[in-house]
């Protein structure tokens, strides 16, 4: 069984924010007014943050630095631990998922996540005139389940799912063609779109996959390693 992982090479990242936009179109994240955005209610499952300039002695580094941030899909996720109703859970392939049909909107997970990757629907989702015609019809749903790009009701939490619906579609295609599913048949939208080819995706348990090879790199690090969450989104240092 694959263990899905993403590697982001900060050396190659040009901070174009293409990943954010691709994610938004793929996963139907609601559009938020500038006023709401100023309140901190902007929804970007995959956000791009400018980092504060480092100071070396009296000299501040002139180089602008950025960090793109999807969900870390921790192996030991603090959000899953605190959910009172199992609306967020980790599946057997290591993806931390969110069931909109069950979430009670207590926002414990959003508070517990040290990475701030979880977003709450303060209002019912809305799109600007015309945009609603471009919504992605994909969804992952079942008995009491509603996941992926499915339109979220107000009052529930949502988050990056490594484009779980793409995985489902790839598996279904393989099944329809009566062949084995290969882990390289599936990448999230942000990886597919990345301008600098800075993002890699694959099976961390496969020693020959790009991600497992890059994870061995001396540049590899994880965000907040000391928090003991063991993220499966891995970064490569600049330089």
């Amino acid at each position, binding site marked *: 069984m694959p263990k899905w992982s993403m590697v982001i090479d900060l050396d190659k990242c040009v901070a174009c924010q293409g990943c954010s936009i691709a994610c938004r179109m793929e996963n139907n994240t609601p559009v938020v007014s500038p006023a*709401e955005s100023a*309140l*901190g*209610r*902007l929804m970007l499952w995959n956000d791009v*943050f400018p*980092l*504060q300039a480092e100071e070396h002695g009296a000299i501040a580094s002139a180089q602008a630095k950025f*960090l793109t*941030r999807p969900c870390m899909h921790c192996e030991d996720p*603090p959000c899953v*631990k*605190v*959910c*009172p*109703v*199992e*609306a967020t859970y980790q599946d057997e392939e290591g993806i931390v998922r969110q069931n909109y049909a*069950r*979430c*009670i*909107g*207590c*926002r*414990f997970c*959003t*508070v*517990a996540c*040290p*990475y*701030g990757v979880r*977003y*709450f*629907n*303060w*209002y*019912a989702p809305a799109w600007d005139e015309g945009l609603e015609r471009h919504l992605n019809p994909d969804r992952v749903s079942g008995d009491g389940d509603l996941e992926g790009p499915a339109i979220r*009701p*107000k*009052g*529930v*939490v949502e988050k990056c799912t490594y484009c779980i619906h793409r995985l489902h579609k790839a598996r279904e295609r393989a099944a329809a063609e009566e062949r084995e599913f290969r882990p390289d048949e599936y990448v999230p939208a942000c990886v597919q779109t990345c301008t600098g080819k800075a993002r890699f995706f694959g099976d961390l348990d496969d020693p020959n996959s790009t991600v497992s090879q890059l994870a061995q790199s001396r540049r590899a690090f994880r*965000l*907040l390693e000391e*928090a003991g969450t063991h993220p499966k989104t891995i970064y490569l240092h600049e330089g």
Partner: protein
Amino acid sequence: MRREKTFHPPNDNEATVLAPLRGVTVRDQTLWIVLLALLGMGVAAWVYQFVNGLGVTGMNRPVYWGVYLTNFVFFIGLAHSGTFISAILRLAGAEWRKPLTRAAEAITLFSLPFGVASIIIDMGRPERLLNMIIYGRFQSPLLWDFTAVSLYLFSSVVFFYLSLLPDIALCRDRLTEVPRWQRKMYRILALGWEGRPEQYHRLERVLDGMAIFMSLLVITVHTVVSWVFGMTIQPGWHTTIIGPFFLLGAIFSGTSAVVIVLAILRRVYDLKDALPIRLFNSLRKLLIVFSLGWIYMMIAEYLSVFYGNIPEEMEVFWQKLTGDYAVIFWLMTILVFVIPLLIFIFRGKDSIGWMVTAAVLVNIGMWMERYVVIIPTETRPRLLYELLRGAYAPTWIEWTITVSLFAGLILLYAVFTRFFPIVPLWETAESLEAESEMDKARERIFKFGAKFGSGFKQKSGD
């Protein structure tokens, strides 16, 4: 009729205590209507929020929890007054507590529902509340909360009702001129209480047993409330002291609330004899201990954070001491500790006015303390404090709902005190058993002797 046979222990204050129950005044009705209107405004605000979404509040990312959670912690804390006084002091054998037990327990009973309500108000999808039972995961501190608070509410109702039982029977037999429905209510609620010695004996035993259980609950409930914060790894929350600190704060604010309530009851219902000033002096000593305990906890927490100098902890630390929350932090310290302690020590003795002033300040300050514990941490989340800097300003919706919760608490209290005796008459009675004249004489002699002996265990209500 069995009623004629019912024994009621003689109590000198019976007439005084029952007087407020003999009729509802116009002033009462006005107060009730005003409070009901405030409560109605809160309900309207909540409906507005339910229809539109939690976006109508000031909450945002990363400040996902705001005033509602502050209210939740505050109301549960306020609720600790009654159980502390009636359960813990009962076990400790502190006889002085008797006249004020019911007034304190009523605070417990009536503030708990508003604590529970605060959580439901805070939920994004309150209509899915039952998911907590259907899919409940006990690994989540929120489920610990759910269990602890509902158990607390349930056992408080039982504890309260049991200790009220003999007095309902008294109302049934004494208040014959009140409206029919009220007499009927007393008759049903009294459950055929006859006041036989073995009934009192059994009642005392049950209350003693429950007091042990309730004392454990007091400690558990507020610790669990704090663990909703403490179990996350967010700086400022993830400390081992958060449980005991929340508990101490709860008992502190609860006991202060008792002072306020007692003073109001004394004044409004003319209960000066039933609620003597010595009660305030006893509470004063407790409150001095609590405020010193509070500053001890503050220093223990903040000094170890400051000395450790861990970067993400320091972000929250400075946010409180000199940052966005400095004003509320220092005001809180002055209101909870500095002024009340000075009043308790130098002005509080034999002065109800000063005691009430200090108690009000403590409670305002304790609400601010809950706010200062919850919000600043969220504005500087762990390690990503560089990326995510939050701010929070509550909206009028949140304030309206907050005011309505307090109005609801006062309303329940005001209505209750018009229909049930707020001073426990059977517990403050001279003696619980229908003795012969001979026994009484013997007891007088015994008591006379006891006065010169230990002076302990006087059951008088003077």
